[in-house]
């Protein structure tokens, strides 16, 4: 079976300096993968490139099996204006975009589904609240409810639990597990290794290039983590041209 997402010798650069360097591998359908690595390892860059938000320098990202509408993405620092005058239910309803688009009406059925999604993240009483009255954790629940409605086959989460309390994290991890049980492909950038060991069967440990990729227990070994840490974070201004042929 074709994987949900295949990376072929992928390099992504900022100003010719690679943030992701000759990365190859595949995310299999229905897999639940954590991406782990030090700051500056290219984790967020990889997700953005998968979403088509950054140009690929060389190599290829192949998600031919999936239409763009089948991919949902939760950015690390969404450019969301949280003071915007909009209600919780309206935000969640945006998850229906593929069905309502610009002009189509919101039916009672769609609205009920949105309320059910809010119930799944335990915010059902918040429907009419303006979003600016929510805490960071509550707002993250709202964004998860919106992703529930998007019904995507591939779900990309960039540090979804940073600055989120333990209970909210546990609840949202439950949502992730539900997605996994429904055979959706989920990729999450994470920093909490304990969390990764408990909840994520597969891990990609990267530091620009892949240090290890596979079963979490085999990837997160002390030796691999040590190698990832040694990666120099700063750009080398005098870096030589990369000798690997594209």
């Amino acid at each position: 079976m074709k994987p949900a997402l295949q990376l072929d010798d992928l390099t992504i650069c900022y100003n010719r300096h690679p943030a992701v360097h000759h990365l190859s591998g595949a995310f299999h359908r229905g897999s639940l993968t954590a991406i782990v690595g030090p700051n500056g390892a290219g984790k967020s860059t990889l997700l953005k490139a998968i979403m088509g938000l950054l140009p690929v320098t060389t190599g290829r990202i192949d998600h031919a099996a999936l239409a763009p509408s089948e991919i949902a993405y939760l950015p690390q620092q969404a450019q969301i204006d949280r003071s915007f005058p909009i209600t919780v239910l309206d935000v969640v309803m945006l998850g229906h975009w593929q069905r309502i688009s610009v002009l189509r009406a919101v039916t009672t059925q769609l609205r009920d589904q949105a309320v059910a999604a809010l119930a799944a993240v335990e915010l059902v009483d918040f429907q009419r609240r303006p979003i600016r009255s929510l805490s960071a954790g509550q707002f993250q629940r709202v964004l998860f409810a919106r992703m529930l409605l998007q019904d995507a086959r591939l779900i990309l989460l960039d540090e979804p639990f940073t600055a989120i309390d333990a209970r909210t994290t546990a609840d949202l991890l439950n949502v992730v597990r539900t997605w996994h049980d429904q055979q959706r492909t989920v990729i999450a950038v994470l920093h909490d290794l304990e969390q990764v060991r408990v909840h994520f069967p597969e891990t990609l440990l990267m530091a620009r290039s892949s240090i290890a990729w596979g079963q979490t227990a085999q990837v997160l070994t002390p030796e691999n983590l040590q190698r990832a840490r040694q990666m120099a974070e700063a750009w080398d201004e005098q870096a030589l041209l990369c000798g690997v042929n594209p």
Partner: protein
Amino acid sequence: MRRALVACLALGLGCGPVGVLLMLRRMSLMGDALSHAVLPGAAIGFLIAGFSLAAMSLGGFAAGLTVALLAGLVTRFTGQREDASFAAFYLMSLALGVLIVSTRGSSVDLLHVLFGTILAVDDASLILVASIASLTLLTLAVIYRPLIVECFDPGFLQSVQAWGTAYHLAFLILVVLNLVAGFQALGTLMAVGLMMLPAAAARFWAQEVWSMAAVAAGIAVLSGYIGLLLSYHANLPSGPAIILTAGMAYLLSIVLGTQDGLLVRFLPRQHLQA
């Protein structure tokens, strides 16, 4: 005078909602920038055809749109922030406008373009203003949903809809159109006032975008009406009278507004249990 009143009504209806969206996009000052950018186009139109509304409007529209597009393109392709690119292009445009007027016209002409004369509105300009207002409201109704998403969470719109930025462009065109509609009545300098002041005031009265837009349109229409009456009876210039009326509405809203207004905020009230 009757024509002037109708023109103000139409202007207010279109400018109010556009202003609210500008404010929510944190582009309040970009409206200002665009209003200055309109100047060279209007000036060229003025020099070619004299005080002809059609020529000045067309020129102003072209100039405003050029600045908006160039600034948008620079932001899109270089990553420079939109406020900086807008400032750069509007300043060039403004300087060019003043240069054109001062080399070829008199300072009286400049004053006309800068401050407008609503009492000189004729049937043709009335139809223009009314058409722009209708077009604005219709377009806003159609692209309301993506426009709001683009405002609130641009990353999301980008991920679910190709060509999300097209709505931004359509909106910028509406802004320029409304400024052009306003400049003959209020002048290029003050046209943006009827957009931003009612919008800024409406924020103190409403919690959702549609109600905010309705309140803003209401305040804009009322300011036009009251300002015009003041200018007529007290023999004041119409533009400043209208904008100052809108300014009064803004000041009153800051104090009395139900959403975060000063009175609500500082009136001692017992806090709730949870």
